[in-house]
């Protein structure tokens, strides 16, 4: 008998308390983000700096080293570099990325010396066919970028390189490599083998 009454009491009290929990939610703010139209700011702008969205290549600072192509585990990057016999320059004739195949792992942007290939915060790419997700970055053969010993001075390239190096600096630095002085808990700056002049900009704080 005590079990019988106990069951009833337990049911009533536990349901009572559960109802109180749910009722209290009428007085709490909803968490819904009304993507995409009813947002105070675009959702892309709220994403953190490290967000791995679509890949983008800055051809101005691409050295044509093929490190990204080698790093890609699923071969979604295709690069062709030709040697121009007259000018002795390397020509980028192809830099295709299949964004439909890409798994946004970020392994390609890690070895990039200049931050030329990097993830953006864009992610909206719905399309009607897989082929149209192939992004072609080289429209006409482009001369690859050669880092300058004295630091970059071309005003057209400096901001791009700065941005690229900031991206590179986000990545962690191996133990043995020399470290740039850093503030508390700030990510270590990676030594810039290709562009010594690049200032290590403080990473953007996203919250």
């Amino acid at each position, binding site marked *: 008998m005590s079990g019988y009454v106990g*069951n*009833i009491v337990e049911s009533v009290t536990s*349901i*009572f*308390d*559960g*109802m*109180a*929990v*749910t*009722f*209290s*939610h*009428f*007085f*709490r*703010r*909803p*968490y*819904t*983000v*009304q993507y995409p139209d*009813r*947002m*105070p*700011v675009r*959702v892309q702008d*709220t994403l953190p700096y490290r967000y791995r969205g679509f890949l983008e290549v800055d051809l101005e600072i691409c050295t044509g080293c093929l490190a990204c192509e080698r790093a890609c585990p699923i071969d979604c990057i295709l690069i062709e570099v030709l040697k121009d016999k007259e000018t002795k320059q390397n020509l980028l004739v192809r830099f295709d990325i299949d964004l439909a195949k890409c798994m946004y792992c970020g392994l390609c942007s890690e070895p990039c010396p200049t931050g030329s290939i990097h993830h953006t915060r864009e992610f909206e790419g719905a399309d009607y066919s897989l082929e149209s997700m192939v992004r072609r970055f080289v429209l006409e053969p482009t001369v690859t970028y050669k880092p300058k010993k004295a630091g970059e001075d071309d005003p057209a390239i400096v901001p791009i390189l700065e941005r690229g190096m900031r991206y590179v600096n986000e990545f962690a630095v191996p133990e043995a490599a020399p470290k740039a002085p850093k503030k508390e808990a700030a990510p270590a700056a990676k030594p810039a083998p290709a562009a010594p002049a690049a200032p290590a900009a403080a990473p953007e704080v996203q*919250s």
Partner: protein
Amino acid sequence: MRAYLDAIAAGYPTVSPALVYLIGMLAFGALVVFVFILPVAGITSWVERRVWARIQSRIGPNRVGPGGFLQWLADGLKNLLKEDVIPAAVDVPLFRIAPYVVVAGFVAAFVALPFAGSLIIADLNIGILYISAITSLVVIGILMAGWSSNNKWSMLGGIRSATQIICYEIPVGLSIFPVVLLSGTLSMQGIISAQGWAPTSWHMFHSPFLFVSFLLFFVGALAEGNRTPFDLPEADSELVAGFATEYSGMRSLLFFLAEWGNLYVIGVLVSTLFMGGWQVPHFTDNGVVLAVAQFATMFVKAYFWVFVAMWVRATLPRVRVDQFMTLCWKYMVPIGLVNVVGTATMMVVLPQGSIVLRWIMVAMTAAILVQFARRVFFHLRRANYGRLGRISEGAA
């Protein structure tokens, strides 16, 4: 109602009065269905989604119309326009009819539902008996749907629903008994007239037996309406969608129309039987104003219970089939029987009831509500839900 029809029949002496009655009743029925039942059921669907959403820290449908109010119209239109898929292996006639049987079963209940003192389609003298009988028609429709779908999940759903509705008729009936004993009538208007507008005169607070009866009735009504925690027939995590699995488009919507409409029926029944129905203080002699006030009172009371049903659904898990039967036969039926005997004894000992007991019951309910509010505040205080991350910052 009858007076209007008599007047019309008098105007057309050549037409048989029976035909006038028939046409008049059909027209009035259609009017009630389209003007009242469909919108109420539809709006209930929208309210339910908004209520759930708020409980779940979401916003809910808010795009169609002001605050998403017209969402139900959009959904209804969409479902009307959708293809009505009838799978190849189903029993076609039964499959087609089933939703209509379900809807008919629940719409027929409106015949005896009171809206206000003068607003009732037919004040049957067996009102409550009629309603509890006619709402059981739904089970036939659900069984038909489950069986004719030629799908094992549907069939399990249909069978569960049948057991459920048949079993819970008994505790529901038993919990209506004390009310009928008190009011001495089965007529809906009669039951309401036996109560007053003040809470102390409601049947619910007559004695502890009646209060328990009220709880039993509400639980039993939820079970009969296939609502959580008794939504076994359409248990989506077990039976996919139960008896409605194979339905699409409007036919599928009709089942849900019946479910949402049924909520309102439950609300009206609870307020009629236990909460004084449309009773308002007699503040004016103007019949129309009084009728409007009565209608509003009834609607608010009924809709409060609709809201509670939604809230319960958002809170509780689902019981299992055997536990469901245990609850019915081991708990609700015996308690219901005790209630009947207890009320009868009360009526012999205290034929006029006891106003002290009524006040104690009201005070007790108030104490429960206060305790509830305290728990709500406790949960609010405990939850540290300040600005945390991007999500809450992005919220509108």
